[in-house]
């Protein structure tokens, strides 16, 4: 048994996707921890945008339950309107965004709205929030999700946040300018996307996970990248930072 939880590894894998100096549209929960971790390690100059209107450079020591918690406001580099930060995103100024969701499919489309028919849903999920905006306009986006067949169907039942649609140049054809998903970080591995077809492919497998496990828990015949590699395990300092941030393990235990 590894000395860390799948959630901790997901946070750490997500943090590694942040490049120094980038403008990152940060979501709550695991993405927030990932961003906080990246700031404290390899990306000290990354700037975080929050859809409530906040731009933040300084890291926060407290665990945030929402982006509007007072510690996220105090000492922010800009506290403005939702429209102003969304304008930056829509115009193309955000390099990277994180989103969650209940389902992610073969082409990286994300559902966080309805399970089943939207007119008579089996489950009514909370909806887009800023996720559709991030997926549509960020330079690239990353989805974080638990890996099982139910959550990774071949085709999501409702596209809240567009990935590569039906693949190829679909995004350009429908008029989207953001780059689309660059990775899906799951409890079992990390998916990337083929440069041409835009179909998901397994890029790395988390330590201790078998390729068959990944395939069995994916709702379509999952392609495997030619450069498939194991996900590097968490470094000691990465784990320490995540645990210091999420002291009570609210999101990572």
């Amino acid at each position, binding site marked *: 048994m590894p000395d860390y939880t799948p959630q901790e590894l997901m946070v750490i894998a997500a943090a590694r996707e942040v490049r120094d100096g980038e403008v990152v549209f940060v979501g709550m929960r695991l993405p927030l921890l990932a961003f906080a971790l990246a700031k404290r390690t390899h990306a000290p100059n990354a700037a975080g945008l929050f859809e409530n209107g906040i731009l933040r450079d300084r890291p926060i020591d407290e665990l945030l339950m929402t982006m*509007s918690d007072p510690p996220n406001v105090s000492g922010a580099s800009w506290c403005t309107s939702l429209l102003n930060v969304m304008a930056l995103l829509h115009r193309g100024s955000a390099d990277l965004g994180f989103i969650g969701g209940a389902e992610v499919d073969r082409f990286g489309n994300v559902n966080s709205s309805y399970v089943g028919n939207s007119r008579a849903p089996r489950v009514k999920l909370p909806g887009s*929030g800023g996720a559709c905006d991030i997926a549509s306009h960020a330079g690239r986006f990353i989805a974080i999700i638990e890996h099982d067949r139910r959550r990774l169907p071949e085709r999501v039942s409702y596209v809240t946040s*567009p990935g590569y649609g039906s693949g190829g140049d679909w*995004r350009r054809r429908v*008029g989207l300018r953001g780059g689309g998903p660059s990775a899906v970080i799951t409890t079992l591995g990390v998916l990337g996307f083929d440069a041409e077809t835009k179909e998901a492919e397994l890029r790395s497998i988390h330590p201790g996970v078998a390729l068959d496990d990944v395939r069995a828990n994916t709702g379509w015949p999952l392609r495997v990248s030619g450069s498939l590699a194991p996900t590097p395990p968490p470094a000691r300092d990465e784990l320490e930072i995540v645990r210091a941030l999420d002291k009570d393990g609210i999101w990572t235990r």
Partner: protein
Amino acid sequence: MVDKRMSLREAIARFVSDGDTVAMGAALEGLIPFAAGHELIRQRRRGLTFIGPISDALLDQLVGAGCVSKVVVAWAGNVSEGLGHNYRRAAEAGIPHRIQIEDHTNLTLALGLLAGALGVPYIPSRSGLGSDLPASNPTLRVIASPLDGQPLIAVPAIQPDVAVLHVQRADAEGRAHCWGALGVTNEAGLASRRIILTAEEIVPGDVILSDPNRIIAPHFKVVAVAHAPGGAHPSPAQGYYGRDHAFFGEYHRRSRTPDDFAAWLDEWVLRLPDRAAYVERLGAERWQSLTLRDHRFAATVDYGL
């Protein structure tokens, strides 16, 4: 000088009618007007259209109490806990009754309010292209740009009957300072036909007018100013109190079934006459644990001549 101060009970009774469209939670996860929402529940408002980007648990409570027939939202649930049980029951099973849902993104909702504020029929956006939002929310229409034919989403204007805004301090005429995360506060106030303010403090006009850049809305749209200390609890009010995470957790657990929710509602809303009683019920110790430990005063500015 028009003195607009009144009790929250009177403000809701006079300025929110059955069937109105009401914008609440404009600042997103903070400054949510829970006190005003509970007053809507106590006064048994029905058929409301609820407008808000991320309404946190307040929308869930209003839906569970039967006040809401339609929601125009980007996200609805319990932010720190996950799904909203009452919202799910209404959407999935029509309990306590069916609600109509107009799904937005945060940006499209903000643009709809901005269009409403400007009085233009729509503002174009690319948010929603390629998604199923235009299918489930037909008010979001795909159009071709008249400039170059590119696809766009026309986000139609949203003009609520009333915006309820919770602020840190206001004067008797309805001029108010609000700080911290603002979300769509500006657009919601301007888009709405009238504004009800609930405030942590009522202060003299001189305090507000000493910093006109921090004022959040034109006072002539404000119809009522209600003093409601603690009125955003369990959401935070920057500089006054933090978020009561445990309260959201407790609400989540106690709203899993309609019966549990009824008991919760009875205890925290129906049996209490007003917000003062609610704060008293929370207890001094709990309230103390939420209030400031560490002041962080803004550097002053000089508007001198």
